[in-house]
């Protein structure tokens, strides 16, 4: 499997700002989506959504657990249908902006092997006040789990590996 870094930066000029004085510059809202095989950094992702207009940054960090149904998990391996995964995340960002007054959004997902305790996904959202970003981040991870074409395979210590299924997956009901 070929692993590579793929970053997308898109500007979304949804919120026009009145220039109050000559020093204030209009800030465009950003949706930053990145897939990488490298270790994710909470610091890096949260830095990306900082804004002088915002008093809140909310984060979600998804990490690898070491157990599932009594089996010891050694690591997770992720793969993605990349162009569609990016587009689905972009749609989620658009949905978030319709529902909440958020400023910047960053969604980083790791691909390939992710050892236990390391982060597989980081979502950061900034907003002027905290309610919007807290709610938007929660929505974002739920929506990602329901519709973004990314898969993980759990590698167990004692038994053979298995492809996981999110209960949020919108088309497949649980066994």
């Amino acid at each position, binding site marked *: 499997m070929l692993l590579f870094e793929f970053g997308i930066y898109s500007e979304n000029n949804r919120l026009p700002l009145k220039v109050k004085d000559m020093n204030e510059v209009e800030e465009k809202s950003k949706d930053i989506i990145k897939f990488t095989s490298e270790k994710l950094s909470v610091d890096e992702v949260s830095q990306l959504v900082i804004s002088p207009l915002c008093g809140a940054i909310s984060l979600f960090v998804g990490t690898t657990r070491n157990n599932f149904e009594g089996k010891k998990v050694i690591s997770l391996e992720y793969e993605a249908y990349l162009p569609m995964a990016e587009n689905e995340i972009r749609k989620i960002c658009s949905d978030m902006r319709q529902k909440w007054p958020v400023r910047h959004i960053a969604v980083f997902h790791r691909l390939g092997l992710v050892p236990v305790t390391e982060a597989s996904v980081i979502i950061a959202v900034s907003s002027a006040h905290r309610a919007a970003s807290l709610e938007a981040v929660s929505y974002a991870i739920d929506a990602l*789990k329901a519709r973004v*074409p990314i898969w993980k395979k759990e590698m167990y210590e004692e038994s053979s590996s298995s492809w996981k299924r999110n209960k949020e997956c919108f088309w497949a009901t649980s066994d």
Partner: protein
Amino acid sequence: MVPRCQVEVLYFAKSAEIAGIRSETISVPQEIKALQLWNEIETRHPGLADVRNQVIFAVRQEYVELGDQLLLLQSGDEIAVIPPISGG
């Protein structure tokens, strides 16, 4: 004679393991129901019958259930076999 086209089928996760490949080009009718398209694919890879009830298609990167929806395909279109997802 129903016109045909060459589409690229992409396999992911469990479906790629079953099919033994990540992608292939197949010839299909330009107008075909989603379920019929699945049957064409399953004929090529009978092991995929195991996941028939769990997968969904992505046609030109839009989700399409394995049902009666009529697909209008063109050569070069991308069809992805999407097993239950587990991102995040």
